[in-house]
């Protein structure tokens, strides 16, 4: 497809379980972002990949969160030992080097019960 694709669209998991969220960016986009939006809150930056540079992980809230981007394309955000406060919509976005606007996917709604 032409847009950013995220899967799954919804995920319900039990507290303490690990989850993996997937993002397929727009083809050719060198930058990839993960954000999350908790209920009633703004967009919280998590991690940023730009080309072959070391990712900016400054937004990851704890060491339970990690992300990787394979081959400069698909990215996976992993949350280990999920907690209830991890419940949020996780949004992925990508952008090209020359243009700053990022294009977002539909998000993955994560619910930890």
């Amino acid at each position: 497809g032409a847009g950013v694709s995220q899967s799954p669209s919804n995920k319900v998991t039990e507290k303490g379980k690990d989850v993996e969220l997937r993002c397929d960016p727009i083809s050719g986009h060198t930058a990839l972002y993960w954000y999350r939006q908790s209920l009633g809150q703004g967009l919280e930056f998590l991690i940023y990949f730009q080309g072959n540079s070391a990712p900016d992980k400054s937004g990851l809230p704890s060491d339970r969160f990690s992300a990787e981007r394979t081959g400069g394309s698909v990215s996976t955000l992993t949350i280990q030992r999920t907690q209830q406060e991890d419940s949020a919509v996780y949004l992925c976005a990508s952008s090209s080097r020359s243009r700053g606007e990022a294009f977002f996917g539909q998000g993955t709604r994560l619910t930890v019960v």
Partner: protein
Amino acid sequence: DQQVKQNSPSLSVQEGRISILNCDYTNSMFDYFLWYKKYPAEGPTFLISISSIKDKNEDGRFTVFLNKSAKHLSLHIVPSQPGDSAVYFCAASARGDFGNEKLTFGTGTRLTIIP
């Protein structure tokens, strides 16, 4: 440390009138500014942007104004339409060695257009 601030969590405007959404930033390295619109259960969609070399950018009903000395930008929507009801996010970035650096978002303003 909130580098991009939207101090109004909500705004209501009569249909047909002008909507003005405001945003302030603290990081003087920011040189590119964007506005996004978000409907419930959807990802944010890009609306309009402005680089720091300009003070105004217009696209149809949407105009963004940048006041660098005040570190302030605003989005004007005129005339406002019911479909404009959404949450609007302001975002900013700086240009680094490898292209634009990460986007920093404000907390959003919920705009409601009253028919």
